[in-house]
């Protein structure tokens, strides 16, 4: 775990007392390796280490008796800053109905998360509608329908609907008729290099008013995560992220990278396959997870 690795790094320094600049650099080199091994993006690590170094070569650290601990505390601090202060909520406005659209790469957990969000909102007094726009993946609609049934949620499908835009428009009318206040839209997975599929999403977000467009990202994603985020930003400008499979012990370095590069808030984290395993994102909890 990261905290252990960080602890080992400054254990080496315990006996040293004051640090020279070279020794600070040696510690930072180790910290850098640890972050890279947690899949934090190369450029993000570079900036982060530079900022830490700036603070670490100050008199205050170099003259401290526990310089190693101070450096780690500074690293902690900079990581927390990146992840953001408090938990951010969903923008379920007074618009009736409010729309939350889930987008992302294949297999990232969109359909499952759609089901989880439905249950989450129902528990908080909302009347959600789960909508599938995935006409590509075998049994995708059936998967969402089963999840809806499992949590006694309303489900909408437009069998003849070919594009997400058509389905969302019909879903809006359906939600209004039924007095449902939040529409959760599941979309088909798509790669950040599949231009026509990105265009399909772009059409949806530019032609419909959507309160939230959330990028659902697998916590095990490696260095490609930043490229994925930038492409989705150009195309659909997400309002936030949901990080899934955090339970697979992935250290969420991808999250740190994407938040650092995009400034997007992480709204929720998926911590398992069950419908109840969705948590509101807490920056300090994720920081301690990244740090070990």
């Amino acid at each position, binding site marked *: 775990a990261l905290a252990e690795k960080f602890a080992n790094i400054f254990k080496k320094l315990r006996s040293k007392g004051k640090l020279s600049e070279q020794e600070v650099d040696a510690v930072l080199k180790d910290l850098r390796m640890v972050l890279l*091994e947690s899949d934090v993006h190369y450029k993000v690590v570079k900036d982060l280490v530079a900022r830490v170094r700036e603070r670490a070569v100050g008199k205050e650290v170099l003259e401290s008796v526990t310089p190693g601990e101070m450096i780690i505390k500074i690293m902690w601090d900079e990581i927390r800053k990146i992840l953001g202060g408090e938990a951010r909520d969903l923008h379920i406005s007074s618009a009736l109905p409010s729309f939350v659209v889930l987008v992302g790469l294949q*297999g990232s957990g969109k359909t499952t998360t759609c089901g989880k969000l439905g249950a989450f909102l129902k528990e908080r007094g909302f009347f959600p509608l789960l909508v599938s726009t995935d006409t590509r*993946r075998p049994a995708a609609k059936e998967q969402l329908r089963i999840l809806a049934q*499992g949590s006694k949620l309303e489900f909408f499908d437009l069998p003849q609907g070919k594009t997400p835009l058509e389905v969302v428009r019909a879903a809006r009318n359906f939600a209004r008729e039924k007095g449902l206040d939040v529409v959760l839209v599941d979309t088909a997975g798509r790669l950040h*290099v599949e231009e026509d599929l990105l265009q399909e999403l772009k059409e949806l977000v530019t032609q419909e008013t959507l309160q939230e467009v959330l990028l659902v990202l*697998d916590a095990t994603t490696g*260095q490609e995560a930043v490229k994925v985020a930038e492409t989705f930003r150009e195309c659909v400008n997400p309002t936030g992220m949901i990080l899934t499979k955090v*339970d697979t012990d992935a250290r969420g370095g991808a999250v740190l990278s994407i938040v650092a590069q995009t400034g997007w808030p992480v709204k929720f984290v998926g911590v398992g*396959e069950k419908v109840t395993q969705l948590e509101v994102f807490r920056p300090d909890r994720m920081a301690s997870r990244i740090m070990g």
Partner: protein
Amino acid sequence: LWSRKEVKEEEWEELEAMLIQADIGPSMAVELVEEFRRLRETSKSGGDWQNWLYEKLLTFLKNSETRLFPNASLENLRVILLSGINGVGKTTTAGKIAHLLKEKGERVVLVGADTFRAAASEQLEVWAQRANCRYFRGSAGADPGAVVFDSINSARNNGDSVVIVDTAGRSHVNKNLLAELEKVVKVTKKLVEPPQLESLLVIDALTGQNAFSQVESIARVADLTGIILTKWDSQAKGGIIFRVVREFGLPVKYVGVGEGIEDLVPFEPEEFVRAIVY
């Protein structure tokens, strides 16, 4: 550029950055750059750095057994078992392999041992229809080990030649799910001899260093014989493969390059390395 006398520090950093961004991993990236630096100091020859890197990375991957069932008897039943964490592409890959083997004249049966996830059996059933092969389904909530047991006996009775087992996605840190997979493998080994079993771990090319711990945990319980790397069409380099091959000696047998039934190709080390280096 790299054959001149002085190489700037930034250029070494650029090489390291390129390797890290291919998901090769920081320690291996540092190792490779240091080796290259030492070589340059000792040998006065210039040489093209890309060529050196290409050859070096290729050495990790040669002597890899990339064929399916290299030692199996073709007259007896063979089993392919697919495992991996959630969402990597197991079910889709099972369909693709079924199609591939049917085209080769095999009598294939696709087995749905994912009795847990919503619409898992419906999803695999569509693939069986697309691959035009028999589908053996486990009832919802049934024990996967029991499903595999029954499916292999059914395959023997039916005269099938290959059984392809799709298992449920699982977190590689969940002890119960690892135990479940271990049981499925044990059941299979009771019914077929080792050369008749191909136990393949499916890994998503977009995965970072976490892939290494996936292999580590699942290798302990699933007697892995190989790896399938999916979503390589994402243009993610899949550099974690080098660490995996070096540490576990597991060959990559196939690569998924899309969502269609034909989008599965045999692993080609040259093409894989070329995509990273050039």
